[in-house]
């Protein structure tokens, strides 16, 4: 065992991991009655220490969102165990904030109402919740847009409102599903830096799903690679030894390049496999 892994193990023994997946299998019932269930993810094991930023990368359709949903408690594994700070998870994960891949803002609430809702529902006085929400909107650079409805915001602005909506509750664990996926390259970088700023102010455990390997390396402490599905597994993980604070220029770092080459070599095969599988599935259908 390498010294790095040993170091993680000792740390993990001292304090329970924020998230611990052990041999998790997630199956979906077959659409045809009586058919065998579809196993999306199998034998997934992953530990995330408190305050650690982990990125998951994998070919599309491999089960990244599924794994995140299991960590959030929205899906129950058919097999294996999900523990949150040492406690087995049952029902929803109350310690986690989840930034969804799809649009998830309340369309009938303004930006500030969307952000304040997490406080409203725990009984925070309205004025206080609004004031706090405005503070968070300022942090994500949207002070001027507080009273707009989601449809009056751009895709990137909506994601920022979503981020503020999740962070205002100070979750101990942050789950993010391709949060910057639909954005253009420049906006992604700006959002990435924003995320790093917010995160470094108050380090939470982060599980960040992306299909963009560069983004994963630029942001994360550790990059986890998932293989192509069905029954996708975690096929490798790499530490990112680039010191923090990092910013956009990290992509010019030679260490970054070396790591990118290494991980891409492993990932490429899976991406091709995943692509072939979805192609043959389409022809079969």
């Amino acid at each position, binding site marked *: 065992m390498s010294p790095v892994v040993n170091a993680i193990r000792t740390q993990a023994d001292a304090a329970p991991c924020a998230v611990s997946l052990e041999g998790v299998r997630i199956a979906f019932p077959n659409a045809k009655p009586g058919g065998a269930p579809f196993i999306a993810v199998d034998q997934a094991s992953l530990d995330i220490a408190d305050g650690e930023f982990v990125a998951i990368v994998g070919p599309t359709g491999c089960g990244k969102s599924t794994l995140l949903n299991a960590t959030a408690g*929205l899906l129950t594994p058919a097999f294996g165990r999900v523990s949150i700070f040492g406690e087995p998870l049952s029902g929803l994960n109350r310690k986690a904030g*989840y930034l969804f891949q799809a649009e998830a803002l309340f369309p009938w609430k303004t930006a500030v109402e969307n952000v304040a809702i997490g406080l409203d529902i725990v009984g925070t006085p309205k004025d206080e919740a609004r004031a706090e929400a405005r503070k968070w909107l300022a942090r994500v650079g949207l002070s001027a847009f507080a009273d707009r409805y989601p449809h009056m915001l751009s895709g990137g602005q909506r994601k920022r409102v979503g981020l503020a909506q999740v962070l205002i*509750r100070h979750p101990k664990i942050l789950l993010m599903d391709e949060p910057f996926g639909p954005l253009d390259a420049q906006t992604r970088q700006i959002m990435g830096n924003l995320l790093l700023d917010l995160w470094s102010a108050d380090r939470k455990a982060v599980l960040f799903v992306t299909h963009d390997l560069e983004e994963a390396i630029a942001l994360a402490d550790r990059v986890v690679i998932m293989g192509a599905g069905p029954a996708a597994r975690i096929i490798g993980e790499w530490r990112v030894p680039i010191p923090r604070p990092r910013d956009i220029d990290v992509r010019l770092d030679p260490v970054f390049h070396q790591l990118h080459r290494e991980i891409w070599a492993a990932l490429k095969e899976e991406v091709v496999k995943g692509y072939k599988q979805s192609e043959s599935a389409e022809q079969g259908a």
Partner: protein
Amino acid sequence: MTRNRWSLLALQLLVAVVLIGLWHVGATVKWNLPSLSAKPFYVLDPFFFSTPGAVFARTWADFYSGAIWYHLGITLLETLLAFFIGAAGGVLIGFWFARKAVLAAVFDPYVKMANALPRVVLAPIFALWLGLGIWSKVALGVTLVFFIVFFNVYQGVKEVSPTLLANARMLGMSERQLMRHVFWPSALTWMFSSLHTAVGFALVGAVVGEYLGSAAGLGYRIHQAEGVFDVTGVFSGMLVLSIFVILIDTLVSAIEKRLLVWRPAPATAQ
């Protein structure tokens, strides 16, 4: 924008002027064409078609003397009662069915049957049960409004985005809070999108009910006039009814605009 609105209004008025002009000419100018008919004739015989002048004069007189206000008031009252009772029932039952799948499944065929029934056949029964006063008309309107609102609310609750629901749950909402912040606004949106139709049907219920048997209301006035072949009276009643509908519809549009501010403006063809 404003210029566009004015020119649109001008065009709309033009249509009215042309149609009324044609009517006027058809009903007042006598043609003498021996090849078509031996006697001189009107294109639109004023006995069957009245004349615009007579219709406007009658309408003006009705408003001026105050004879019409009472009937307008009755029809308005019936329409509002039918709308609010029908909408309240539709919202409650729609909500309930959407949240209780078993209930919806059990009642599904009956709901479809009841909705497929032409409501006019119920009018005499309601008159029998509730008498010739306003309540038989309200009941007829309710049967129309209820189903529109019911189906829309049911749909609205069912079609809540699963991601939005998951997000609300992850933000820590209880079942009650989900109702208040997710299902209820979604159902209301759908309800308001059917507001015009629902109010329209409430009015149809009231007027048809009055027409089939009553002692007051716009439908009653039209029926009375028809009974004595008073075509001017019938057209005058229709004119009042149309003005009434336009006023109500404008009011509904204003309410809708106020309540659905968060919605993106529908794409226009221009």
